[in-house]
């Protein structure tokens, strides 16, 4: 009997091996075919980035007759590299992604964009390392730092703050940069931060003017967890709204009633359902522009806005939403007025550039805080031209999208709104770059800037001064 069992089992064993081999073979074939278009799409991405620059030029001629826009600012950090790699610098750079990883259509993908541009411009080899779990941050950073092969190691995302702090102490001769993390006191760590209040002021001004144009009584903002970082967004946005109202009054000569400003903290960055409920409540109170400062919760904002518009039989806003971080205009084309872009690509590129300058001896301190604002191209309000870049990212991440249709729809939505409003927003961007002392309701923009980092009391004070319910 035992012979029978033995025979049975070994044949079962062989059988299972064969089945597994077949399955694996199929997977391998699939992976092989997947790998091929993937490399193709990487090349398309790099191509489109170069294309966007040329598109930008033609676009400025076609859509904006005035000379207020600065096209290079939004598409590329610096069109011609002025820095060369000094002989003493290592010839590689490394990017460590957080658990979001590549394909997040936002932070990590933009970091890749910046890093690959830097590697091409400066002739450096780019090494990417993804993190499977939180426990990978420290090993990833240490493994890279140990080799000493890298001019700079870039950690993408504030989640890596603790790990970078620790490894930076252990390897004092290795340069690190952290995107969006705050490590102020280490000579070998560059903290790249963004002036979100500047970008928020721009979308605020847009929201204020558009709300009056459509004769809405209110505008809103839906936020994630109540943490001090978000106060920057709030302050900038409120200030921008009041600025926009002022401009609208002057331009049209109408006597307008100040907008009600609604704000809601949902308490979560990853809960679209909460975002939707909060937005529905604001829409019910007459808001027709809602700003998303809530990460993935914001997807619910977009949905609520789209549903509200469709319920009124429109295939475009109002009401509108405003996107955040990346150019989100394509997610619900026609319903997202614009996005407050945080140009992580610019941040990564600048960090590499700065590391090379340091090796060349042109600057004597690498570490510290690098705040990127409108002037540096670190924050911006989205333009139609940016869509090309971001749609390429979305395509690479495997989204099925119809590029031309989306671009057409966004263009159509933008043309529904008077040109002068868009021009005023661009004008504000220029103003904030040169003269941050612009005053609205007795509050200078530079005053807000000076108060940063804001705490709970300071934001209350700002809300009060700008006529926002203090909560």
């Amino acid at each position: 009997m035992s012979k029978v069992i033995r025979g049975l089992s070994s044949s079962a064993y062989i059988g299972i091996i064969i089945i597994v081999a077949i399955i694996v073979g199929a997977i391998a074939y699939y992976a092989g075919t997947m790998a091929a278009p993937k490399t193709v799409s990487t090349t398309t991405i790099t191509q489109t980035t170069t294309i966007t620059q040329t598109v930008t030029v033609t676009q400025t001629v076609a859509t904006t007759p005035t000379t207020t826009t600065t096209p290079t600012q939004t598409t590329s950090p610096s069109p011609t590299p002025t820095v060369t790699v000094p002989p003493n610098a290592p010839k590689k750079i490394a990017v460590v992604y957080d658990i979001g990883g590549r394909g997040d259509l936002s932070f990590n993908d933009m970091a890749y964009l910046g890093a690959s541009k830097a590697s091409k411009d400066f002739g450096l080899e780019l090494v990417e390392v993804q993190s499977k779990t939180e426990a990978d941050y420290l090993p990833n950073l240490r493994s890279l730092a140990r080799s000493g092969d890298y001019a700079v190691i870039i950690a993408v995302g504030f989640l890596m703050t603790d790990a970078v702090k620790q490894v930076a102490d252990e390897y004092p001769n290795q340069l690190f940069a952290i995107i969006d993390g705050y490590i102020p006191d280490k000579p070998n760590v560059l903290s790249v931060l963004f002036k979100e209040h500047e970008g928020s002021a721009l979308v605020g001004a847009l929201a204020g003017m558009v709300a009056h144009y459509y004769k809405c009584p209110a505008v809103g903002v839906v936020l994630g967890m109540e943490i001090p970082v978000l106060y920057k967004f709030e302050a900038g946005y409120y200030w921008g709204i009041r600025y926009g109202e002022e401009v609208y009054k002057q331009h049209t000569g109408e006597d307008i009633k100040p907008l009600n400003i609604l704000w809601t903290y949902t308490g979560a960055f990853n809960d679209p359902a909460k975002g939707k409920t909060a937005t529905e409540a604001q829409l019910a109170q007459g808001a027709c522009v809602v700003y998303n400062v809530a990460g993935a919760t914001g997807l619910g904002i977009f949905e609520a806005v789209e549903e509200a518009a469709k319920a009124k039989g429109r295939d475009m806003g109002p009401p509108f939403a405003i996107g955040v971080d990346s150019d989100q205009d394509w997610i619900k084309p026609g319903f997202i007025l614009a996005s407050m872009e945080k140009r992580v690509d610019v941040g990564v590129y600048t960090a590499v550039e700065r590391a090379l300058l340091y090796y060349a001896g042109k600057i004597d301190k690498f570490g510290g805080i690098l705040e990127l604002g409108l002037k540096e191209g670190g924050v911006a309000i989205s333009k139609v031209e940016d869509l090309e870049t971001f749609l390429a990212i979305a395509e690479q991440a495997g989204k099925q999208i119809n590029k031309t249709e989306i671009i057409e729809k966004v263009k159509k939505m933008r043309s529904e709104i008077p040109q002068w409003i868009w021009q005023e927003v661009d004008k504000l961007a220029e103003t904030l770059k040169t003269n941050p002392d612009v005053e609205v309701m007795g509050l200078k923009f530079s005053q807000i800037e000076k108060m940063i980092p804001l705490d709970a009391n300071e934001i209350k004070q700002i809300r009060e001064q700008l006529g926002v319910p203090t909560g």
Partner: protein
Amino acid sequence: MPSSQFWIIFKEKLERVAEIVIAIIIGFIIAGIMMWLGGYDPIAAYIAMFEYSFSLTDPYYLAMTLSFAAPVMLTAITFAVGVRAGLFNIGAEGQLYMGALGAIMVASWSLPGPLYLPLAMIIGSLMGAAWGLIAGVLKVYRGVNEVVSTIMLNWIAFWIVEYARVYVYPNPIDASKTISMPPAGRLPILIKGTELSASFIVSLVFVGIAFYLLWYMVLGYEIRATGLNPSAARYGGINPKKTMLWAFIIGGIAAGLAGVCEIAGRPPSYAITTGLSNLMGLGFDGITVSLLGANHPLGIIPASIFIGALSSGARGMQIVTNVPLEMVKAVQGIIIIALAVPGIVRLIRSKILRREVKVV
């Protein structure tokens, strides 16, 4: 004759080792073909994987491998003890979450320094055990299949801990994680500049205890007897209900302890992070480890080191050969499937054997 009996046992063991070696080779070959089709150099990738897990020149990587082995060693015990008692307890994941929550709970109290670690271990493992016991009670008194109940309890635990992370124990400075275990309550780092903490020793000791319990104590004998045949065990005077409950409790303690070790022994954050991203998957990896180690505590030790090496070697594949993480994960998956085949075959074989015996 004793010598021939020894020969039979020796042959059987040798056969098992051969099985595993063949499975590893097959797994590596198939995964290598996949990498080759994807346009990467499989040999260079495997060399990099080895360099970044067992490097002969740099002890850092061996330390990293052992640090990744520690938690899965414990969650493997959860599964192994279950299998020995005839249970398919896949609840280590949720029990580990609860253990981690217990540790954070202790971290939130203000205590004299030396109390943190022992209290965290006690409360964490008790919470893990309690979570396992829910499935145990449902199984023993209500006949609820433990596969269904444990997998559901995993998700309930996930959301309870995630809720606690956001609303009960949030870090006031960094909203992405909970408060951290105070330095007094942390397991010491064994080699400076590495991730290897005393949690590896804790895991080894617990595995030793589990081995002793299963093979040299009455309870262990009862557990194994119940697993082999509950009816025969009952006939022999064993209460299978009681032993099953004990199997759930021991498994829960192991998984809970793994959760505590991840909080108290994993630099740099010593906290539960957003989406439980520092805990996720450790419980399920334990199942793989247990299967690789033939559900035997002594087999689990090398198996966990193997899985730890795959985790740390993944870095090398990315850094040296630019293989993307997705491909690395697929390679790991194929190797694990290939390794699990002998275990599954043996399971099928024992099922057939049982049926044949019944027929006879």
